[in-house]
């Protein structure tokens, strides 16, 4: 846990440094067109008020101090506190990502196990081909194709996103395509991984021992192989979340979903550094927490690791 905090600190430094290395004057955004009408001294005054003239290191500590107090600064573009923006947009992204994670975690390993125990047969071939295909598809491109086919051509789905507050039914409908898109890569990747892990386990000595005891295939697979094979699947869960956030950024753009991903992209394009810092930090926090949970799950699965925690 202590490690996680250190990691977050370093990440925060990274992102802060990145944003403050940028060329261009943030005041330009802040003031918009009126920028040109200001005298340099007035600009300096505003800069001073905003604390932008302090050395970068001090600015960083100011920001960290703010974070600990729960204040992530204000967006230059929207003039609203970043925390408010996050509060508005985080739920959608979380729902989207969680659903996609659920789908890929349930389907991926299942397909992978099926493909492994029916190795070489039609189930394996079909699933493997589909999985191999799934990891080559660009997330946003799939979204566009889906939009084209199902929204524009067939009219099954709306192109516009409906927030939950307006119409819950439509909200759910409008989530179907994005979730599908987002879960595609994860499912395919996990299918491949689970398959290869199970095949690896199948060659282990203890599986041979299990066969030599005269146990049925079902028992050998579920009692002896599964737990061992799924350990690597659990370990990559942290990376899954990372990929999901990356995918969410794109899916939110394609499907026009007002989530954290969109916020980040807009912030980056507008050089709205408070927003970007806040957004990235948020993602980093979630990922670090996920990794922590993964470590705990890993210890539960593998009794050898459990020992070292006693």
């Amino acid at each position, binding site marked *: 846990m202590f490690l996680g905090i250190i990691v977050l600190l370093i990440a925060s430094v990274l992102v802060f440094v990145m944003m403050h290395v940028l060329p261009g004057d943030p005041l330009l955004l802040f003031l918009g067109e009126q920028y040109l009408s200001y005298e340099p001294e007035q600009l300096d005054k505003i800069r001073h008020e905003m604390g932008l003239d302090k050395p970068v290191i001090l600015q960083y500590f100011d920001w960290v101090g703010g974070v600990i107090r729960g204040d992530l600064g204000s967006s230059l573009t929207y003039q609203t506190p970043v925390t408010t923006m996050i509060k508005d947009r985080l739920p959608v992204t979380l729902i989207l990502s969680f659903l996609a994670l659920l789908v890929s975690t349930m389907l991926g390993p299942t397909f992978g196990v099926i493909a492994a125990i029916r190795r070489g047969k039609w189930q394996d071939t079909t699933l493997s081909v589909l999985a191999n295909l799934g990891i080559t598809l660009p997330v946003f491109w799939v979204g566009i194709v889906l939009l084209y086919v199902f929204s524009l051509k067939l009219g099954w789905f709306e192109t516009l996103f409906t927030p939950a507050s307006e119409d819950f039914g439509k909200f759910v409908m409008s989530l179907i395509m994005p979730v599908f898109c987002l879960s595609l890569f994860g499912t395919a990747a996990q299918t491949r991984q689970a398959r290869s892990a199970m095949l690896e386990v199948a060659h282990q000595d203890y599986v041979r*021992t299990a066969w030599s005891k005269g146990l049925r295939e079902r028992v050998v697979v579920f009692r002896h192989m599964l737990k061992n094979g799924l350990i690597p699947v659990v370990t990559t869960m942290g990376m899954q979340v990372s990929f999901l956030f990356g995918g969410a950024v794109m899916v939110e753009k394609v499907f026009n979903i007002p989530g954290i991903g969109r916020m980040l992209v807009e912030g980056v394009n507008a050089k709205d550094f408070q927003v970007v810092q806040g957004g990235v930090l948020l993602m980093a926090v979630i990922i670090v927490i996920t990794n922590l949970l993964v470590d705990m799950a890993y210890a539960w699965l593998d009794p050898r690791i459990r020992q070292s925690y006693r």
Partner: protein
Amino acid sequence: MATLLEVKNLHTQFKTDDGLIKAVDDVSLSIQEKEIVGVVGESGCGKSVTQLSVMRLIRPPGEITSGEIIFEGDDLMKYEANGPEMRSVRGAKIAMIFQEPMTSLNPVLTIGRQLTEMLELHKGMSHGAAKKRAIELLDMVGIPCADTRLGDYPHQFSGGMRQRAMIAMALSCNPRLVIADEPTTALDVTTQAQLLELMKAMVEEFKSSLVIVTHNLGVVARYAQTIYIMYAGRIVESGKCKEIFGHPRHPYTIGLLRCVPRIDEEEGRKLEAIKGLPPHLGHLPGQCAFLPRCTHAIERCRKDPWPELRMVSPGHHTRCFVNPEGGSQ
């Protein structure tokens, strides 16, 4: 005594990137009830694959291409490899003890579970009854505090104890035949001795037969009644223990015996190794595979294909043209 297992002309092959490997080439064995049989040979000679073939545990790219495996009068080859008949034989009638106890036990299941599952499956015991019996078995093989040990995982046992647990597992369903594949190779010498004594005592108690697969002649000398010596996938000599040790007929056996240091020999005798290396099983010549390393070879060995097994005295067979004790065979 009745014949428990009769293997006739077994052939097992593996298709690999390096070619077709004939791991088991025309092997025939015979195991009586309550007998202890030793199968001896270097690494890669096919002794382990033979045992796995008997249990029908060979999977692609390996395949049993021909032969009969007659167990208690029934040819096991006519059953499906994973069908209900074979499954009722494995574990219940023929059980196997493997070489590496660390990797042969499932790391994420408790020792108790790995024992009780056999009892529940083959003996139809309830979970509670199986646990009781499991504790008894662990006790029998000399594991202290068996009742608490039941909930432990393999990595919490020492190497010797793991192997004892494997022995308990193998014997749990009173099998007629126990196959021990290099059971003590991975352990230190003291533990080796203890475990071998344990196995002998157990099979006597359960009235089972035992096959010990090993490369260690000392082990078979002490325990086995019948010995089979394998080389390059074939049996090159077989017979009763005393015969083989007293009158070895195959140059390979003689070479093996010379490798073993003996406490009763003259000082200063050099340990003689058999020069050369075992052949690659994918590139076997037509003649005797031992030829490059043989010190007794004659002209005929170079020209003729590998000899068949011939009887040189009652119960004693060998696969050689030459009689090292003089005279022809």
